């Protein structure tokens, strides 16, 4: 399908927010190395990687209306694809490509199975969850040295240690140091954000949202929802793959726990906390939750799980629509120009419609 922007005078306002976000991102990108040391950078690098992961979930769920309980399957596939690729090739550039392509291919197969099989939403949740657990079990049981792909032992529960770090494309000896990795991760986050903003502005993106709003109507207008959902799902998988690749690079290590229920649930929480139906929300959510977790671990008064549990529950009861809409709301109140107002409402109502 040809991607063309539909007439949307309102978009300018949307772009305003997007541009602000990108600029903010760039400031962080270049500012961070000045204000923090190696460890700080490693820390924010993993935050950025997880934020990309959250972005993917936020896209397919908040805009595509696909509730995937197993997004971590794609994170994991991306991570493993990178690790295996990097250990078999001298130049990691190819491995990065694998990290994106493998999840997308897998998603295409799974998505076809689900969407063309007319499987209802709740059950799409179950199937994705189940598939993730299957992957976890399989990878988890590859400990024997018989399990290896080329030079890369799968390592079962132990995972794959000392994965080669990213290198400058075409120059295998020039490997990225923590700072380089940070630029890479944060850069990728910004690019993914821009990419998704653009996709949503295209005709394709509008139809995706339309289908979420009313599948029957979209169908009666001649659009095939199955196809659009499939494409959305595949895009999400590719972005999750990028996240997985960066996640692996961050620790130079990957293990089956990336396929865990934890990871999938974690990303759902990011999106809900950040705000469903926004792109900035999942990013904020990911960083906020990760930061909260750090705090929880840092204090010794109350068990971190207990603390986090209480926070989550309080959150559902008090801020159900997520932080991003709330922030936008207050922005709206501060500067009452309609141009800012409408997108905010749009996103709130999208959030609510879930």
């Amino acid at each position, binding site marked *: 399908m040809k991607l063309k922007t539909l007439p949307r005078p309102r978009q300018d306002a949307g772009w305003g927010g997007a541009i602000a976000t990108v600029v903010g991102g760039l400031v962080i990108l270049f500012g961070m190395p000045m204000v923090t040391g190696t460890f700080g950078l490693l820390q924010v690098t993993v935050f950025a990687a997880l934020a990309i992961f959250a972005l993917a979930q936020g896209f397919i769920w908040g805009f595509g209306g696909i509730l995937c309980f197993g997004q971590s399957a794609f994170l994991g596939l991306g991570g493993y694809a990178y690790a295996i690729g990097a250990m078999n090739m001298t130049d990691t550039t190819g491995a990065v490509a694998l990290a994106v392509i493998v999840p997308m291919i897998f998603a295409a197969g799974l998505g076809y199975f689900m969407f063309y099989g007319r499987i209802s939403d709740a059950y799409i949740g179950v199937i994705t969850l189940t598939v993730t657990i299957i992957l976890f079990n399989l990878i988890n049981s590859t400990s024997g040295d018989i399990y290896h792909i080329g030079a890369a032992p799968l390592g079962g529960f132990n995972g794959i240690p000392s994965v080669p770090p990213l290198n400058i494309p075409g120059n295998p000896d020039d490997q990225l140091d923590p700072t380089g990795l940070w630029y890479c991760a944060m850069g990728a986050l910004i690019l993914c954000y821009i990419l998704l903003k653009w996709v949503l502005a295209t005709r394709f993106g509008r139809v995706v949202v339309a289908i979420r709003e009313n599948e029957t109507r979209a169908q009666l207008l001649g659009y095939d929802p199955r196809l659009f959902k499939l494409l959305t799902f595949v895009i999400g998988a590719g972005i999750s793959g990028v996240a997985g690749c960066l996640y692996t690079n961050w620790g130079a290590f990957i293990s089956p726990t990336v396929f865990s229920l934890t990871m999938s649930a974690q990303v759902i929480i990011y999106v809900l906390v950040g705000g469903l139906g926004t792109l900035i929300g999942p990013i904020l959510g990911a960083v906020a939750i990760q930061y909260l977790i*750090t705090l929880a671990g840092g204090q010794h008064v109350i068990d*971190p799980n207990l603390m986090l549990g209480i926070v989550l529950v309080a959150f559902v009861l008090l801020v159900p629509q997520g932080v991003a809409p709330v922030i936008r709301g207050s922005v709206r109140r501060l500067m009452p120009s309609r141009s800012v107002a409408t997108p905010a409402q749009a996103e709130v109502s999208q959030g609510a419609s879930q």
Partner: protein
Amino acid sequence: MSRTTDTRRGFLKMGAALGGTALATPFIARNAFAAAEPIKVGCLLDMSGALGVSGQPMLQATQYAVKVLNDQGGLLGRPIKLINYDTQSSMQLYTQYAQQLALKDKVAVVQGGITSASREAIRPIFDRFKTLYFYNTQYEGGVCDRDIFCTGTTPAQTVSHIVPYALKNWGKKVYIVAADYNYGHITAKWMTKYTREGGGQVLETDFFPLDVTDFSSAISKIQQAAPDVVLSAMVGANHLGFYRQWAAAGMKAKIPMASSTFGLANELNSMDASVTNGIVSAYGWYPTVNAPETTSFLDGMTKMFGPNLPMLSELDSASYEGMMFWAEGVKKAGSIERMAVIKALETGISIDGPAGKATMDPATHHVVHNTFLAEAKDKKWDILENFPASPPADTAAVCNLLKNPRTDKQFVVEVN
């Protein structure tokens, strides 16, 4: 799923620096050398999740070692400050905290890691960021890396004693059950090796991921194979279910069992004597070892942490020894600088651990250790035999860091 939720709970808990700091402060206050800049020592252990049950006493042993050293006046006139993080049985947190200890806290040495998985996850990080690392767990052997010292015993020191005993007393047909990760796989190989050397026959080897809780089919399979002996290398909280279900199925009466891991996770206290009685194991230390060092170690620990400690095991004595070996190295080197300490430790330093004299083998960075064979009897370990100064022969066979200091890998035994 419990494995995965360990990490779910894991990701919820970062930077849990408990005990260490809290404990260290009073000494600093008490001691004259309070003024001196403390030496920071890092510790990474699972306080919770499937491995928390082993990690907690290991931390306590480490804290006890720090206390002992500080009470003796610290090292180089400086107090020791322990910084420890709870890794929650999560690989991500191991990575994260390893980076934190190496780069942010800039500790002089890191003690810890329980599963081989965690060790392999953090070893590269410490290599990369030039941090000295002690791994204090009874493990599968073969790690050969100049930046790491392993104070736990290895198959050549334990399995080599378990298997012959089993073959001699129970019979030649062996069935192996092991945890499905590299510890289990490599240990199973050693079990097979020693069984064959002893003229026995391995009927079958089954591996179980750490999150398996239902062992009924496994027990049926074992019954079908009808071995004389079951050798177990099961790991973690979930696998305790195996022993429960084994006893519940009335198998204890039929087939005796020996294990290379049983007893490392407070099994004797957490399970009924009817479940544990008669299981044979071999380690570098038992609380029932009849030696003055054992008594003083136990007294010290009880004095510091109160009477309701879990039953201590080799993991805990090794954690204590790990800290002590490092301290010995620092004293000898007169510095906490990494290379200096490594060189000092490579002079074949000995310490008096809970199990008596233990010597660091320069070639392998493993420990020449007294080991013991014991049988569980009414929630106590009844020592059957002891083997003074068993060498880490398995690792020694493949690894010589004096000849090739550049080696940085884990060797795996080939059984054919």
